[in-house]
């Protein structure tokens, strides 16, 4: 594949150093209004940026100590993490915190300088709805399979999955399944690629992939690729780089990645980069952001684009991190 992509025009080569610089610049944009409007995503953004750097082979491009300091400064007494200091604790930022600490190998620091793993586990476990098995995002009660996956992701990294009722959660996911093999945000909701990723990944973590109708789901997922090579998230919708991750990782988990045209998807993702200033956008020619940058890169990594570190399809983190943390 490497040889083949060298033959592509220059703008379709991966602009690795531009992407690294783009990610490094993200925290220096304090004179941009958007920087302040997106503070509620700061910890998620750090996870996206750091994962992108790891996949690009530049894990040291963000300073480790400052990264850990920032993550720990977001932690509350409850054990949960907010998006930034002064923001309330939430499942989404808590999961990002755990993922970041896992990537920089700093669970020890969570123990010595933070509130400790056990407290984080307790915070997450308390968000499970013990009747239905699903999870809320925070104390105010919004429920979504995104939060269930987040809980499984973080708890399994911490080795604390036993704190929650895994069987109940699995039952809940099964109740979200649809006739087309996909999964929705809650029982009754239509299949959506993002939600399929969360449900299939959670089932994979729970060791219950036997519940997935792989033929039917694989068919639905493969039909997400449309003319131009990009993937959409639902039937009759536009393509978007972030679905290069949600759809592709789900296909990978059920062993059906070969059901789409990989080369066309690679070319689509590469057309979405800004080769000069770095970063990847949703569609060619649009404004880049760190969200589409990481999911574009993670997609390329799953597609074995040359020069990228392998990504874990369940955790959206480097395979090397998952191997170290889970000891496999």
């Amino acid at each position, binding site marked *: 594949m490497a040889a083949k992509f060298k033959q592509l025009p220059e703008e379709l080569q991966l602009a690795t150093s531009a992407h690294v610089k783009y990610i490094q610049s993200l925290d220096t944009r304090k*004179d941009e*209004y*958007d920087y*302040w*409007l*997106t*503070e*509620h*995503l700061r910890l*998620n953004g750090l996870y996206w940026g750091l994962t992108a750097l790891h996949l690009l082979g530049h894990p040291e491009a963000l300073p480790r100590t400052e990264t850990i300091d920032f993550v720990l400064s977001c932690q509350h007494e409850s054990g949960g993490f*907010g*998006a930034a200091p*002064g*923001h*309330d604790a*939430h499942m*989404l*930022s808590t999961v*990002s915190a755990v993922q970041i600490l896992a990537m920089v190998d700093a669970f020890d620091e969570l123990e010595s300088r933070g509130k400790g793993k056990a407290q984080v586990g307790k915070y997450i476990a308390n968000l499970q709805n013990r009747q239905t098995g699903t999870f809320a*995002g*925070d104390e*105010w*009660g*919004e429920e*979504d399979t995104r939060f269930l*996956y987040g809980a499984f992701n973080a708890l399994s990294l911490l080795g604390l999955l036993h704190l929650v009722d895994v069987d109940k959660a699995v039952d809940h996911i099964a109740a979200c399944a*649809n*006739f*087309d093999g996909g999964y929705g*945000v*809650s029982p*009754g*909701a*239509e*299949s*959506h690629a993002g939600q399929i990723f*969360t449900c299939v990944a959670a089932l994979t973590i729970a060791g219950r992939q036997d519940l997935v109708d792989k033929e039917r789901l694989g068919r639905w997922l*493969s*039909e997400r690729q449309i003319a131009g090579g990009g993937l959409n998230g*639902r*039937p*009759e919708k536009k393509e978007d780089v*972030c679905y290069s991750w949600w759809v592709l990782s789900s296909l990978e988990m059920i062993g*059906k990645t070969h*059901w*789409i*045209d990989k080369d*066309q998807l690679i070319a689509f993702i590469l057309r979405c980069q*800004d080769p000069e200033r770095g970063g990847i*956008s*949703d*569609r060619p*020619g*649009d*404004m*880049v*952001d760190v*969200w*589409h940058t990481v999911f574009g890169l993670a997609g390329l990594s799953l597609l074995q684009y040359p020069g990228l570190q392998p990504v874990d399809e369940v955790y*959206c983190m480097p395979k090397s991190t998952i191997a170290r943390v889970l000891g496999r």
Partner: protein
Amino acid sequence: MADQGGSQHGIARSSRVRTEEQRLRDLEKIRKYRELEDQVRSRVSQRDYSPETFQLTSKLLRFNPEYYTIWNVRRRCLISGSFSKPSAGSSCSKGSSSFSPSDTTTTSSGSYSSSSSTATPPNPASQTVGKSGITADPDAPATDDTKQDLDLIRSELGFTIPLLLQSPKCYWIWSYRLWILRQAIERLPVATARRIWEEELGLASKMLGRDRRNFHAWGYRRHVVEQLESSSLQGSSLVEAGFEYTESMIKSDLSNFSAWHSRSKLIPRLLDERAADGTARRAFLDKELDKIREAINVGPEDQSLWYYHQFLVLSLVGHDRDQTFIPELSLQDRVGYLKHEIEEIKDLLEDYQDIKLIYEGLFEYTIYVCQLEGRRPNASEQADLAAWLAKLKELDPMRNGRWTDLERDLAATAG
């Protein structure tokens, strides 16, 4: 992972370099925004959930509805000050006169955007009043507390409307609105709470009118219906109305997978509630098949339509109660139905030779016939299947890996 808030969808890249003038304008916006944010934060750090703090959250959320912590501050303002206490007892909250609900508070679902919560400061006085006169009797006269809560709830619902119209995919606004609606159940007489929830169907329709595929709005509608059906709102089934709603959505636009999906979810319940017998179920299936076939005749390249057709066909293939809404059909009937569908699809080939979904349907349904009859494809079926696969490979090379797998499976069944 997290939601997509804050990411750039569909904004052209050309705007990436700013002029000095733009930069200065940004700096001024940042200054104003941060000043407001600092004010809220310093009040929160002193646990000040007063009407003034509440007003500041209105301002800040209009700048940035994604700021979830500020929605939480707003909730805390309401709980610790403005709402009466949700428990039965004497109505002694006369001190609530300082509470001045917005004079533009809406009383009907028609005027969503006219209400403004900045004019609705919470009332710290009621915090000390204790027991309120909330009662479950819908006919009981409204107490001051009830009225206060009702006004506040309506005002909050009004506050989120312009924000939702502006950011229809913002999870936090939808979730705040549902929290307010839950307060209605907890704090208002059932009949009053029910009226408020009923009006939410209007909002869901309005949002789906603007974007027929918005899955937040579909999910919201589903949740509202569930609540309206539940005992906490003295509800009963709305399945017929829900089915009619999908009908009207489909009528205005055949290519709405969300509506077809919703329909597929309602059918089993609909038939159960109609106490439909085998004949009625069969008639229902015939009607649905006619309907979707007619649609496919017009738009055979539309995936949404084929997915619904697949749903109907799967109810012929499955035979457990949870897989089908027509369990009464005999094996022979089911095979008959399938064969009929296959013939109908073959007819499509006269008008459309290059639509891959047609060949995929033929291939899949023929395999189902063999599965139902518990046999391998016969020689003529084998030939058909191989020809359709060849066509699929030709028309849809993107999914060649799948066609190759199907080819391999077919060869295995041919033995």
